[in-house]
């Protein structure tokens, strides 16, 4: 069975500080991976997707970047956080037409 992990579970960071969020999927070879962001009480906004190692497509950047360093790993990062980056970050993988989500990382920027 496939499992998807995200780290950290939660972060409290200062404006202007760097950020790195991680996502790992096990049990699935060459998965299509996605990063989403959700403001508190809001709907989901797709940020990036990747279909293979080293290849990332941007949907909405929000002053963030993403990388796919390994087949099973997807990283979301920025060098300088903004207050508007606060929210819930979700990683997902796709199985044909269905998507499955990780537990998420809650980010608070102060």
């Amino acid at each position: 069975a496939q499992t998807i992990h995200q780290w950290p579970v939660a972060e409290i960071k200062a404006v202007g500080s760097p950020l790195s969020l991680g996502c790992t999927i096990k049990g699935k070879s060459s998965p299509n991976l996605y990063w989403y962001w959700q403001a508190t009480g809001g709907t989901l906004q797709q940020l990036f997707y990747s279909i293979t190692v080293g290849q990332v497509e941007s949907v909405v950047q929000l002053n963030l970047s993403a990388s796919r360093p390994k087949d099973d790993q997807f990283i979301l990062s920025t060098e300088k956080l903004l207050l508007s980056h606060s929210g819930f970050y979700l990683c997902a993988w796709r199985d044909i037409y269905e998507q499955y989500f990780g537990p998420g990382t809650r980010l608070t920027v102060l």
Partner: protein
Amino acid sequence: GQQVQQSPASLVLQEGENAELQCNFSSTATQLQWFYQRPGGSLVSLLYNPSGTKHTGRLTSTTVTKERRSSLHISSSQITDSGTYFCAMTDSNYQLIWGSGTKLIIKP
């Protein structure tokens, strides 16, 4: 662009009542999926239902592709069913187009 609309925006029911959630989409190519999100939690895939009727536990989804609509029926609602329900359709680029969600509150 393709759109997904959900109704109602919120729904308050007594425990034991049935809930009916609606999803309307702009394209006949649906690949529709229903998700559940607990307050402060992640998204759980409930049902993938591109057409017809599908059941899992107390959940029933009916998708009528030519009418561009899908419904999610929750029978005998429980307090733990409270949360937000999203429908989403997969577009031709395999990206999910999301509805704005229905917030369900089940009262004891």
